């Protein structure tokens, strides 16, 4: 995995930003679901859209757009934020 270059939570990212997933803190079925959406360690993602209250996010992973809530985004650690 990439070096420990300042890890942040996905929920703290801003619109238009790019980042690399470095850890997923979810467990069980939720983790499985995130993984099958392609949200795995080492994958790049783009923050596409977030609601005014920052409660719901849309991220793009590869060719896929995924909607998730703040609580779920807070389980995803990203690094290399661009």
């Amino acid at each position, binding site marked *: 995995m990439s070096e420990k270059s300042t890890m942040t939570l996905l929920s703290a990212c801003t619109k238009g930003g790019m980042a690399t997933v470095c850890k997923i803190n979810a467990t069980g079925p939720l983790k499985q679901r995130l993984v*099958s959406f*392609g949200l795995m360690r080492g994958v790049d993602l783009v923050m*596409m859209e977030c609601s005014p209250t920052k409660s719901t996010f849309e991220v793009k992973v590869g060719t896929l757009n995924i909607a998730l809530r703040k609580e779920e985004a807070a389980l995803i650690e990203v690094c290399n934020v661009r």
Partner: protein
Amino acid sequence: MSAKQITIALVGQPNVGKSMLINSISGARLHVGNFTGVTVEKTQVSFEIDGYDFKIIDLPGTYAFTDYSIEERVTHEFLINEPYDIIINVLDSTNMEKNLQLTAELMTMSKKMVLALNMSDEADKEGIVINAGYLSQLLGIPCVSVSAVAKSGLDELIQSVIEVINEPVQEQKLIFSEAVEEEIGLIENYLNRHRFTAAISNRNIAINLLQKETKTYRVLHDNPLWIELQPILIEADHHVLLHHDTDDMKEAFAEEYRAFNRGILAETVKTNITAQSKKTLTEKIDSVLIHPFFGIPIFLFFMWGLFQLTFEIGSIPMDLINVFFGWLGETVGATIGNEEIRSLIVDGVISGVGAVILFVPNIVILFVGIALLESTGYMSRVAFLLDGFFHKFGLHGQSFIPLVSGFGCSIPAYMSARILKNDRDRLLTLFVIGFMSCGARLPVYVLFTGAFFGPAMAGNILFGIYILGAIIGLIAAKVLKMTAFKGADEPFVMEMPKYRLPSLKLIWHTVLTKTMMYLKKAGTFIAAASLLVWFLSTYPKNTELATSFATKIEAATSEIQVKQLENKLAEEQLSASFLGQIGHTIEPLFIPLGFDWKMAVALQTGLAAKEVVVSTMSVLYSLGSDANEQSNSLVNAIHDHIPFPSAVAFIVVIMTYLPCLAASVVFTREAGGIKYFGYLFTFTTIVAYSLAFIAYHFTLWIG
């Protein structure tokens, strides 16, 4: 000789076009929509090609072999426990990497398989070129590029299935990293040495043991070999986890599969860079439709537009239909000599069925709206937009999908609640779906708004009724969440499909199927119900009443007086009928809401089906008034006989009370027990009664 039968399990991730593919191959009419979780139950379609009897089972889409939600469980249980000859794994050509994750998992099942690379038309447009031949070679599985929309590659797909069926075995080539291969090899060797054989290959058993696949695990666990196998497995486990620097075996395997898939795709898929680099159309549309501030207003505007159209366009053919049924009643009535049979046919069946068919144009427009929402991809966007808002009321963003289906009909809505992973969320959604006014309630609303408001306002009022229903539903959800369904919030993670321009044909088929169902219901169920209502409201004939009025009528001096007396007779006859008696018995319960006995009865009959409210009123008011007055339509009757505050309270009850019989049955099944029906009954009755009471008195008070 009977034809050879081939049973095919159609498996794939959600929204890759499985149902559409079956429709294109067999001409079936399975429900298709551009969001995940359209199919929630397995459906079988049979057809014959080249002397083979094909039986395809359309399964709900599944991302991976973990039981995330109920509908995914359906698929897994089918794949593991039911007999089938071959799997067609459908993939979206524009999303190969994600789709192949499932394929890799399927490959460990040692089943015959063919890959259908669907949406090849879209791949072409996006500049994605897949070398299907080479992919087949690398995977050891025939891969066919198909397009369910353009109907290309379908024959080839069927031919591949027939070929694979007739081949003895198929060697699939799933390859792992060296470290994992080593462990697989160890376990496989051990099994081989001890001459262990099963329906699936020892290599796949080894993989499944490592992955902790429950069924394989269980079988081996009961085998004497287990004592020696267990330490080997523990060691292997340890090595794999260490190699992947994780404590989660599923994650390790997901990474293995991804590495494998990437390797394969690098060799078989070429993407035309220029076509990819520009901002996709979907992103452009999304920047407007899910705009943080304008997104929700735009959605509300679309909704408002839909209800305006429902009224504006819907009213054009309505007059024609009204005239037609009036004419039909008169013409048919004229040919029937017997007064009683004439009344049965004209006042009972024609009047009841006509009243329901009258609203077909409105229903069609509503269906078109829902079909557009479902098939363009906008549905998931609205779920995204509303999640934050819904969340405050304890609902899940994805609840939006069943709730929207609820505007069409509650039955599919109850079923589609299966996409919600958590039972608490699902139950909560099930309880709220009834507050989303279904299509069958539209006739009642159109009738009443038409009776009390001019055409300019009626569309707005109708929109208001639907919004109000939805708000009541949200508040009800909040109350339930705070009392009955307390608990932690469930995750919201959802795929957003790309926008697709739905073909006219698809919309046409969807709307046609639903409309035909509505018409069929009008012709059978509603006709029967109208007959029953007619019977109950015509008998017993009170001869005393008739003779006493006959003398009065004879004594009458003017034409007007005669007419008045005749009307009074009809009214009293109706009042003395079975239904009248029932109505008068229950009337006291409804007096606080301002309902007369006819309204009370209509509400009760509405429990059978909501359209019956309209047909019952039509029968009751056409019997009560002068039957020859054809121009005096139901709308006028309602305007003349029902005070405005009572009408408001009536609408409120229709909005909130118990769903119809068929929906209640489905609700009980989906919720998982008759006790939930008890709760629903109590809950909706309390809500309906108290809100109607408030509405009645409030409207009275404001004048």
